[in-house]
């Protein structure tokens, strides 16, 4: 077990920012912490990385206690923070070189910079970097110590789509080398692509904890298929299939929710009865759908609520 958190609580004044959160992350896993802004994600990882002292609960990260084993912890845990900047007049290469000196077995800074598209910026002052470049440097610094666990807070915020894909690829490579990654994000797409397991957090509590697909299936009831049959048939023809959960008529269309090899099962069964399924559409639910089902709100609605 790389990380285990149990009954974590953090209170600011009267606000229970983190309210009894427990989860564990296996070695070599990418674990996503998802939720809207203000859900308590950042506070949770700040407790995990020793930046904040929890009011209650226990945390073990590679068997270390973030409060009492800080130096040892930071030698093996890389952290990327949401907001931190560097002196304007330091060059990218100098910052990488400085952070490299903190570790016994650091990564090759040139390789890392290359993987994050920063090769051409090594000789540039920090001040001259774009927001996305600063963000990528921040990710690079969290990985330069070849950490066994990397904690990344909103690492792709502010990146353009291509840069985001590059960072995702880099993380997958690093995960394949055995690094455990905790990823904080409010990007459902990012979590769906990268994470082995996700914790959906809202208002300081875990709403759901599963693999992305498991979460989607659990919340939305599974896969959805829509088609138009070439001729009418008895509902039971399909509803008796183990893969099918529900069948619904929508005008000429039929909408089926189920699991497993759902499309194959439907088409094969219909074909046996000389029925053709026309205009077959897979409706793949997303984590965003799962979030809406769980909280009754869209992520962007949450952001708007906060703006008020």
């Amino acid at each position, binding site marked *: 077990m790389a990380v285990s958190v149990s009954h974590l609580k953090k209170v600011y004044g009267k606000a229970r920012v983190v309210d009894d959160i427990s989860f564990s992350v296996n070695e070599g896993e990418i674990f996503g912490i998802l939720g809207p802004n203000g859900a308590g994600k950042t506070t949770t990882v700040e407790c995990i990385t*020793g930046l904040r002292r929890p009011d209650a609960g226990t945390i073990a990260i590679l*068997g270390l206690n973030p409060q009492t084993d800080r130096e040892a912890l930071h030698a093996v845990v890389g952290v990327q923070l949401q907001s*931190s900047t560097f002196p304007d007049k330091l060059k990218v290469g*100098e910052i990488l070189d*400085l952070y490299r000196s*903190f570790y*016994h077995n650091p990564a090759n800074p040139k390789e890392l910079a290359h993987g994050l598209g920063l090769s051409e910026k090594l000789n540039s002052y920090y001040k001259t970097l774009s927001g996305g470049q600063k963000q990528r440097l921040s990710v690079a610094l969290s990985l330069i110590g070849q950490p066994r666990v990397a904690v990344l807070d909103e690492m792709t915020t502010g990146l353009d789509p291509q840069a985001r894909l590059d960072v995702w690829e880099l993380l997958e490579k690093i995960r394949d080398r055995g690094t455990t990654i905790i990823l904080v994000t409010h990007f459902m797409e990012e979590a769906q692509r990268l994470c082995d397991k996700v914790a959906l957090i809202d208002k300081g509590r875990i709403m759901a904890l599963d693999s992305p697909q498991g979460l989607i299936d659990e919340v939305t009831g599974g896969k959805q298929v829509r088609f138009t049959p070439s001729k009418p048939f008895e509902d039971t023809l399909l509803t008796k299939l183990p893969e099918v959960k529900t069948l619904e008529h929508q005008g000429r269309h039929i909408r089926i929710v189920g699991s497993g090899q759902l499309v194959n099962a439907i088409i094969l069964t219909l074909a046996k009865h000389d029925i053709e399924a026309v205009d077959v559409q897979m409706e793949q639910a997303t984590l965003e759908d799962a979030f809406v089902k769980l909280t009754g709100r869209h992520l962007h609605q949450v952001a708007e609520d906060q703006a008020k």
Partner: protein
Amino acid sequence: MNPSTIKTPRAAFKKLVLNEFRLMKRVPIGLVLGLGLPVMLLIIFGLIPDTGQASKDLGGQSYFAVTFPVLLSLVIMSQSVMMLPRVLVAYRETGFLRRLSTTPAPPAWLLAAQVVVNLVVIVIGSVLLTAVGMLAFHLNAPKDWLGFLVAIILAAASMFAVGLCIAATAPNNGVAQALGGILFFVLLFFGGLWLPRPLMPKVLLDVSNWIPFGAAVGAMQNAMQGAFPTAQSLVCLVASVVIFGYLAVRYFRWE
């Protein structure tokens, strides 16, 4: 390897110091303030006619000799009270310290690195000032070397304590700079840049004696004439190291 036995490479401290030197060179306000200004003032005072003449009002010393310790204290102050808090508060405000606290390098190393680079500037500035004074303007070497050295070291220690205290308590960079700026003029006044200490009315002199900057200037002035710094000035300097040092440690925030 058992993770709890891993120690941060000591080379990291060297890198931190190296980076602080780089930044000081690239943003050379501190160098202007700590090296340029005092030497320039010394030359100006030296060029004014008769400042080198012994004066009865100044207890037989020349105006130039009385002013020299003030400028030496200015070198120390500009680095420790002006530059140090300015840089450290900026590091805290921008999250640089917080980011550092997530690495194996203790953020206290960055504080230490800042003290080191500022100390180096102080040493260079003091040597430069002394060399110009002695070579160009016939300044006599202090008659009590040991007393002079003790005075300088305690002056530096107490003013670094004040600087760290400002760095610890100033909520943001604006406040740190304003505090530094006000202290700059107030301390220089009580140190006797405009009105030499021997000419100060008793009230002013009492205040001067009991603030670290004035006590440091007084201790150096005594040592220049061959007297070991007075017990009172030593007590004042040591007490300010303890008090401001304690406040700095007590209230320092990394974020």
